[in-house]
């Protein structure tokens, strides 16, 4: 092999360069995603009623599909009540139901959406709850 050492050194430098992002970040802490559900509106509710329309696991996986189904039911069929798996009914509305409890859009919605890089267009039209982000930052 002609110039074998040059090739080997070149390969080593190349591999080191390519794996740099992985070696560089070992030992460092990853960005953590911590959606918060501790809004004052939820804290105020009695313990028994402190539940979302469906279970946490279901909401985590299916909330996007559920919101689209809600939209179709309300807009197309004029049905505004959602009966959940426990038989309890809720008004189907992102603005008037979901965000009345989850008043912390930046910590509840954006936290995960930013992490996974999705940009749902909900807030182009729907009115987001007023948050005092500046105040929280000062505290």
């Amino acid at each position: 092999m002609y110039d074998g050492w040059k090739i080997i050194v070149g390969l080593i430098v190349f591999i080191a360069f390519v794996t740099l992002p992985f070696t560089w970040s070992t030992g460092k802490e990853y960005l953590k995603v911590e959606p918060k559900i501790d809004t004052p509106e939820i804290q105020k509710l009695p313990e028994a009623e402190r539940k979302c329309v469906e279970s946490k696991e279901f909401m985590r996986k299916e909330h996007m599909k559920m919101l689209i189904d809600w939209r179709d039911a309300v807009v197309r069929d004029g049905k505004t009540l959602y009966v959940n798996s426990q038989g309890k009914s809720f008004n189907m509305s992102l603005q008037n139901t979901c965000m009345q409890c989850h008043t912390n859009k930046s910590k509840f919605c954006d936290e995960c959406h930013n992490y996974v890089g999705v940009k749902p267009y909900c807030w182009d039209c729907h009115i987001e709850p007023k948050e005092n982000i500046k105040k929280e930052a000062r505290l």
Partner: protein
Amino acid sequence: MSNIDRRHFLKLLGIGAFIGIGGSSLFEIVGKGTIEASVEQYKKVPEAFQAKRWAMVIDLKKLDQKIINDCTEACHRIHNVPKILDPKEEIKWIWEEKFKNAFPEMKDDYMAPEIKNMRVLVLCNHCDNPPCVRVCPTKATFKRKDGIVMMDMHRCIGCRFCMAGCPYGARSFNWKDPRQYIKDENPEFPFRMRGVVEKCTFCYERLDRGLPPACVEASKGAIIYGDITDPNSEIRKILSSNFAIRRKAKLGTKPSVYYLL
């Protein structure tokens, strides 16, 4: 099995085919029905107003400037309609028009000026045969079962075919983000975004909650609404005892908004 004859074989085949095809589809129909009935996830509120076809009567004799302003203001405030002064970009759900412009086919050289310039409140006619629905390529605008011609803003791509299709000019396009033009927002109703078409929705969100349309509420009796298919409804009684006109009825769109002169 060797003694099976042709006749017996065909009989068995027939019975088998009947059970196979008929039985399975019967099971499907019955099964589906029970499943759907047991988990009815989406329901109407019991107090929701329901009709086969909603319609409206506007009594022009009772309209004055104050009522017109009140109706427009109430509608536009409740639905977060932006107030843009430039007529090329303005958004309107319900607005004032002169009689000669609202009913151009009735214009006549010798028409009394007070009729010619009479104030008329115009809005989406919620046609029974809506041209806007026919031309919409995404089914963003559609006719509900109760006759309301609705918009699904999520599906609108802003092609404006519906605006070209509507003979009443009832639709407005959002050339700009409407948010900056709204001072007092109604937190219970969404805005629209730039690039979608919007119009009157017959207050579907209020009817579904058991409330009359906002303009009817603000009109002090000048606007009456109801189910036009119900012969005992107030609106049918008015229509059977008065002469009522509709805008551009000859076009065949079958508008649901009637005017009393």
